[in-house]
Structures are given as C-alpha cells and as structure tokens.
C-alpha cells in the first residue's frame, strides 16, 4: 500500500467541486512482457463526481474498457490505484471486493447481463438476494415502474427482447441504490430507438434519483446524454468535455483524430 499516492479521494471536494464517487491515480495496466508489452493503461489519473452522468470515450483498443473494469474492481492494476468513494480497491481482499460490488456498485454490460435461468424479477433482486437481504421494496417497485417492466417481471431473459433485457439490467443496477453504476457500452447491441430509451432511463436515474453513472461508449450520440465526457487514447486521458452535445463531441474526436 506504500505506493498509493496521497491525497485521499474524499479530499477532492476541498475545492468546492462535487465529491469524487470513483477515480484512478496514475493507473497502469500492462499485458505481456518484453517487446510484446502492451500498455492498456499508461498512467491514467481521473475522477468521476457524485451525482453526475460521466462518459468515457475512445476508439477500440484505447483502454477505455480496461479503465472501467479497473475502476469497478473487476480487474486489477499493474501499478497505481483506483478508488470508489473512500476506499482504495487495492486494499481490499476478494471478500471485501465482492461485498463492495454487491452493495456499492451497479453494472450494466453490453450483453449477457442476465442469468438466463432466472426471471426478470429474480435477476433484478439478485444482488440483494446474494447478500441475504430483501432490499427496499418501495424503491424497487418504483424502479420497475420507471423502466416499464411491470408486466414482464416473470419472464426469463430468453423471452425478452434485447431492449427489455437491457432495461432489466438497468433496473438491477439501480435496485440496490449503489453509490455508483458502471455501464460498458450499454446500447452497443441495441437499435437506435431502444438505445435512446435506455439512455433516457440512465439520464433520468441521474437527474431524478441522484444516481452516479460512469459509462464507456464509442457512440457520440450516447455520450451526449452525459454531463461530462472523458476522452481516452493509447491508455492515456487525452481530454474532456463538460455538458457535451453530439456536435461538440464529434468536433473533438475529429480534431484529436
């Protein structure tokens, strides 16, 4: 732990800005050895504020997904640190990490978000059930109503459309009221209409329910739903945009391009 740099993440709000919900300090992730070495992350320092919808953008192989996986505690760094709230992830053992993912983190993946043998309802409640809790029933009902799944709750994933499956995934991510939700190309497999629906839900979750979302995408339209876009290239942060629009994002991509 001696290599972990100060300052502690919660100190980030001393400037009067919002507190950091998650972030990375000089994060490096290297695959392979010698000449074959690939730096997926090459010294990334970044933080994502509480109560905001942030997007991470970059071309394929830029390291954006690796950054998300490491921020979420799904993968480990070669050096540097990542944190969620007040907690450095490297300080946690597998048990504590699991606990953290179950209680403080929500996930939405591009595909294969749901356990195929469980119904939509069971999938939504899964993180709570794994912790032996029943969760906040009123909140879960509200989430289910918001994503419009009330009549599909007892269907299995194979009986749901792709868009419905992603809505179940969003509902699951929200159900345990996590500190932060990580989304990995959540609309990557969806047509544009369904994709818009999902992004609207995510936007509303942040605006109305005060959730925090960090989303990886390569789609400027999706990124434009966010409050802030962080650009990644070759394992490094290459820039950022606040209150982005599709046009400003495309401009930025073209200029850095």
């Amino acid at each position: 732990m001696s290599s972990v740099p100060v300052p502690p993440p919660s100190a980030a709000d001393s400037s009067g800005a919002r507190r950091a919900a998650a972030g990375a300090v000089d994060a490096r992730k290297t695959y392979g050895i010698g000449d074959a070495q690939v730096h997926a992350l090459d010294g990334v320092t970044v933080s994502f504020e509480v109560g905001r919808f942030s997007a991470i953008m970059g071309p394929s192989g830029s390291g954006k997904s690796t950054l998300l996986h490491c921020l979420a505690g799904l993968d480990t760094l070669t050096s540097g640190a990542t944190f969620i709230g007040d907690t450095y992830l490297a300080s946690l053992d597998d048990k504590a990490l699991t606990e953290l993912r179950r209680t403080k983190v929500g996930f939405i993946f591009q595909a294969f978000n749901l356990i195929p043998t469980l119904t939509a309802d069971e999938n939504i409640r899964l993180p709570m059930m794994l912790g032996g809790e029943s969760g906040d029933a009123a909140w879960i009902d509200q989430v289910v109503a918001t994503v419009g799944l009330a009549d599909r709750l007892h269907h299995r994933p194979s009986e749901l459309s792709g868009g419905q499956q992603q809505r179940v995934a969003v509902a699951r991510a929200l159900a345990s009221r996590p500190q932060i939700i990580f989304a990995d190309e959540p609309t990557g497999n969806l047509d544009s209409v369904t994709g818009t629906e999902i992004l609207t839900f995510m936007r509303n979750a942040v605006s109305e329910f005060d959730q925090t979302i960090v989303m990886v995408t390569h789609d400027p339209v999706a990124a434009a739903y966010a409050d802030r876009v962080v650009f990644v290239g070759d394992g490094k942060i290459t820039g950022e945009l606040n209150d982005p629009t599709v046009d400003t994002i495309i401009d930025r991509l073209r200029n850095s391009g």
Partner: protein
Amino acid sequence: MSAGTLIARKSIRARWGRTLAILFAITASVSFVVGSFVLADSLRATFDNLFKDLNERVELQVRAAQAFDGNDARDPIDVAIADSIRAVDGVAIAEPILQRYAQLVDANGDAITPPGGPTLGVSWEGDDGLQGVTIREGVAPDGPDDVAIDKATADAENLAVGDTVSYLTDVGVFQGTITATVGLGSADSFGGAQLVALDLDTALVRFTTDGRVDAIDIAVADDADLATVQQAVEAVLPPQTEVVTGQEVAEENADDVNQFVDVFGTGLLVFAFITAFVSAFIINNVFQITIGQRLRELALLRAVGASGRQVRRMITFEALGLGVLATVLGIGGGLLVARLLIAAFDAAGAGFPDTTTVLATRTIVVAALVGIGITMASVIVPSRRASKIPPVAAMRPELGFAAMRARRLVAGTVVAVVGVALFLVGLFLRPGGTTGLIGFAGIGAVLLFLGVASLSSTIATPVTRVIGWPVEKLFKVPGALARQNVARSPRRTSSSASALMIGVALVSSTAVFASSLRSSLVDTLESAISADYIITDAGFQGLSPVVSETLAAVPELEAVTPIRGISGQVDGETKNFGAVDPVAFEKLVDPDLIDGTIADLGLDELLLHRDPASDLDVVVGDALDVTFQNGVEQTLTIAGIYGDATFGNWLIGLDTLAGVSTAPARDFFVIAQLADDVDPAVGDAAVEAAMEPFPQANVQTNAEFLDAQEAQINQLLLIITLLLAFAILIAVLGISITLALGVFERTREIGLLRAVGMNRRQTRRSVRWEAVIVSVFGAVVGIVVGTFLGVILSLAVPDDVISKLAFNPGIIVIILIGAVIAGLLAALYPSYKASNMNVLDAIATE
C-alpha cells in the same frame, strides 16, 4: 429462499438434458448397489426361513461330533441309536434321516438331470415324520416298490402319482411306483434339486449305508422340557456323537448356504462400486464442461456481488439436489432389479420358495452414501474452479478460461505411481490377509485409474492424431474436422474417454489373467499329468467310488485313481488333504518329486508339498500329528516331498483315508490312463461302455477337458463383461453427453461450416468420427492399463496356478471393434443435433 438454492434449482430445471444424463448415471449406480444388497439380503432371509421351515418340527438332532468346522460332511451314525433314543423319557419321535445320491431315469434309460441343482435321494417317513417335506398329492412311500418325487420334476417330466419310474443310486437302477409328489413349504422344488424319497428301510439298502444314517431328528412330547430331554438323550449316546437343538441345526444350515450368498453378494457389490466410480468420472466431466459453458453467467454473478464461496455453494447445491433425487430413484430401481433377478433365477430352475424382498437400513445408508457421495465427490473440483472465475470474465470470457486451468501432469503421475505401489503392496505383501489384499489392491487400482485419467490428457493429442489418421484419409474434410476437434481440448477428450478406459481396463486385465490361467493349465496338463481321461461329476455331489472301481476293472486302462478329500488340522490349522491311489497316481501325475517316494506311499503315510514342508521344517521320515474333522487323530509319516501343487499340498493314500473316516466317499474327479498298446478309439469305447450306468460321470479326454476348462474361463470373462455392462453403458453415455455439449458450444462454428457449404451428412460424419476417435482412445489406454494390471495380477498368483503369462490378441481386436461401435452409438444424438441446426440461427449465436 437464498440466491444459491434458487439458482441451483433453476439450473437443474433449465439444463434437463445434462440433468437427465447425470441422473441416469447416478441412478444406475445406486440401483446396482441397492440391487446387490437387496438380492443378497433377500436370498439370505429366504434361506433362513427355508431352513427354519425345514427344521420347524425338529426340536433336537443327534449327529456325529466333529473336531472342527471343515469342508467335510459329518460321519454317519448307527441307525440303531434311534432305538435307544426312543426309549428316553419325553422323546415323542426319533426319525433317522439320510441323504445320498439318487437320480431319476426316463423311459429310454437316460438319466434326468435338473437344470441347476443336485439330484438327491432321501429317506422320508411321510407327514408323520419331522422333515419339512410336504405332500402335494398321494401318500408317503412305504416299502421297496414305492417312491416319492418332487412336484417340480414330476411336472417337468410329465410324471404323476401311480406312474412307474426308474431311479439310479450308487448301487444300481431300481423301479418304483410314484406314491406321492412333494414340495417344500410353498415351493414345488427344493432349491432346484431333484428329489427321490424312499422309506427309511428301503433307503438304508438302496443307498448302501451299512446301516448308518446322517443324523436322527427328535421331537419331544408336548409336556416334556426340551433341556431335560436333551440331557437325557445325551446320556444314552455313544462316544463321538452329540445332540443339538433344531434351532442350531437350522442356523448352521442357513450359514452354510449364506456363505455362498455372501460371496455372490460381495462380487456383485464390487461391480456396483466400479459402476459408481465410472459414473463419478462422467458426472465430473459433465459438471466441468457445463461450468465452462456457464463461465459468463458465473462471472456475471461474481460481478454483481456473489462471493466465490456462494458460486461454489451454488454448484454444490445443484449436485446435492441431483444426488438426493437419484438416490431415491436408485433405491426404487435397485428393488426392481433384485426382484427381476430373483424371478430370473426362478425361471432358470432355482426353485426359490416365496422370497421376501428385504430392504435393510444399511442398504439405504449405503445407497445414500454412494448416490450423494459420488455426486458430491465429482463436483469438488468443478465447483472450486467455478469459484475461481474472475468477475471480469463476464465481459472477457478468455480471461476466465485461463483461471480455470490446472496442473495435471505432476499430480497425475504422483497419483498413478502411488496407485501402482499400493496395488503391488496389496497383492504381494498382503498386509492384513485377504482384507488387506482387497483393500490395498482396490484403492491402488482406483488411484491408478485416477492418475492415468489425469495423465491421459497429456498424451491425448498425439495418440488421437494417430488414431484419427485413417479417419482423415477415409473421410477427407469431415474426418479432418473430427480429428482436429478431438485434439482441440485434450483434457475433455481424455476425461470423457477415461470412463470407458476403466471399463476396458477391467475387461482386458481379466482377459490377460484368464489367458495366462488357461495356458498355465495347458502346460500342467501337458507336462505334469499324463492322464488320457478325466472323469468329472456333472451333479455337484461328487462321484460315487463305484465309478473309479468300475474304471479300475476296465482292462484297456493301465492306471486309474480317484481324487478324494478330507479336512484335517495340523498344529491347529485346517488343511485340505487329497487322497489318491499312489501306484496309479505315480503313473498319471508327475508332481515333481524332490525326495522320498510316491508309489510306495503306505498306510498312515503322507506326501507333502515343499512349501508346507519348509514351513513346518520337516523332511522325509518325520511324523506329523493330524486331527481330522471327525475327531480322529492320526500320526502320519512323511513318505515324500514334491514340488507341484496341482493336486494340493497334502496327499494321503485311499487306505489311510478309509482308516480315519467313515463318511461316504465321494470323488472330486477320477483320472485314468490307457495301457500303452491300446488304440485310443478302442479305449474310448471301453471307457464309454464302462461309464454307461453312471450318468453323473462326465468322461472327458485330455483335450475335451481342456476345452471345457477354456469354455469356463471364457464364460467367466463374459460374466465379468456383463457385470461391467452398466459401467460401459454409462461410459458411452458420458462420451455422448460430452460430445453433445461440445456441439452446443460450437454452434456458431458449425453454422459457419454449414454456411460455407458443408452438407448435413458431412456434419454428421465429423461428429460421429470424433466420437469414435475418443472412444478408441479410451479403449487403447484401457487396454494398456488393463494389460499391465493383468500381468501384475497373474504374477501375484502362485506359480502352481499361473506359471506363465499369455495374451489374447483376439480379445483386444474385439474390444477395439466394440469401441468403434460404442463411439458410433454415442454419436447418434449429438450428430443429429449438429446436422439439424438452423444455419442462420447458429451463426447468430454468441
């Protein structure tokens, strides 16, 4: 409900194909185990009841005393003792009983031989007597012209009360009128035996007993006290006789029979456990594969907050559920199997009385241990591996597979070597006697199989490349695909082949053992025994001494000797003594005499094998004190020491036997040699003619005897293969399910191949030959391991029994052909599945 049990339950339901396969494997194993127990328990209960019924009215029995419990029948006692017993106060009935050889003869003069049992001649006093024989029709025989026979034989031979029938005893052929048909309790037959019942006086003459009977059954008067009467009877008995209660007799009789039931039951159980072991392999493999397929699902669980322990518990719950369900099904299946087997025995002429089906608590406990145990044992490694899947594999499955890899080479080698070591220790050092032998060798074999199974993944790729070569040459692209798919995941190939490997190894080790046994027998018969004829007994009762006496009188025969037996104790240890005619024996047998003489073996002299001679530290001329089973003590002087134990370790002359035992002589077999100048055809005719009156004497020439032995050895091999059928069936099912899961995994790839132009037939072919390559691989490894085990087994057996190793290439060819067929069978469903995929859907599968 907790998330773990929920997911486990749902998973069982959602993957029903896999669930069914696992259920079948466990259920079959448990059924086999339960069936073995239930069958043995039921037979035991049946025999207990049978002998209780038989002796129900016998309150006391007087019989010859014996020094120890050996292999011999008790000496007969004087029938006159019955008179002195009848004079005892409180004795109501004293009935002498007698059981000897007798056999019915049909109208053509040919002996009637029952399918499975002995042919018995008994004395019978009718319903007034104490024997459990019950009249079905007619009245008890009374006089030399009367006879009663059992109902089963009467029905089979169309005989009825009033018919005249001929029967054979050791003395000759007699005629009688059937006065009654009889049964035993509810059964028409006496455990498959043919029964000829005569009244006592007739029996005493026709069975040539010199006025002696086997025992005297006693019923006491209603108002008399059993213990008092027993004491009073004891007081009038001559020396060397004893009086025991009917209950003791019933228990002893049942114990004698149940010894065979125990051996039989234990034998079945061994194969039941082999089946369970093979099942464990299959279940393990299926779990392993499905966990690979569920990788993303399990990683997702980890990502959303399931701990590694929860994932492990989930898999374990799944297995537990299946194990419990299969155990319940297996207990039902086992009861069914046992009932069917009993019915089959009955149909084959065993003539069991009403058999109760006994399901002991012990059976249920063992069933649960096997059913749940093998499932849980099979899931230990897969579930641990599942718990190691990192959450990131939900998005990047390739990282998950890396985490599931394990080191097998070192562990496999260590396990296999330890297994061989234990096997050797068990067979050669035998710590703790027979139990130690079976325990060590058994655990050693299990470890060897586990080790080889895990090692075989390292050799799977090169070996299957070789096996696949002709397939590729023959079937071009589908053949090449089959060959590559087998080589693609060597671990999976080896573990699905391993189940078959075990079955094949057991068959081929038995084959090596059997052929070594056979060729050693040939050697012995060719070198040590110069007999031209071997006369064995067809009826399990031993040959009448009249047979050898008759043969000795045939002028064409130069030397004839019977082989009889008696049990005797030397220094408190029971030994089996063989009794022969020494002069003839020397001409017929070369027992590798080391010192002394054979032909001059005299009265109260002994021929001793060199092993006990060196154990006892005795030489020719020394004397040994022997106590025979009937209590007679005799000092025997060693006349010779020999080296070949084909005829046992202890040999005495017939005269010595006659001096120490009055039990009716029965010969195991008789060997005879033609005189030098006699033409074999003439000799055959002479022997045949001499044996005409003895239907139970089975005359074989040297070559015929060898053929018969070989047929028996082959039969043994066949029975063992049949007993392994369940295990082999499960192994084939295992290959099938592995392949089906593999096809499922490769859906997209198969779709692609179909899209670029592979037709259905080619698709089927590639899956089919993949199965054949896998099963042939299993068979090849099995043959190697089995041959190795067979060689060790054969070496462990004393040289007198197996003196040289022999291999049977024919059986190896049969096994390989069987493996190809097994592969083709295993591929039926997976190949159908693969060829019937919708191409577009298949490509769209992720």
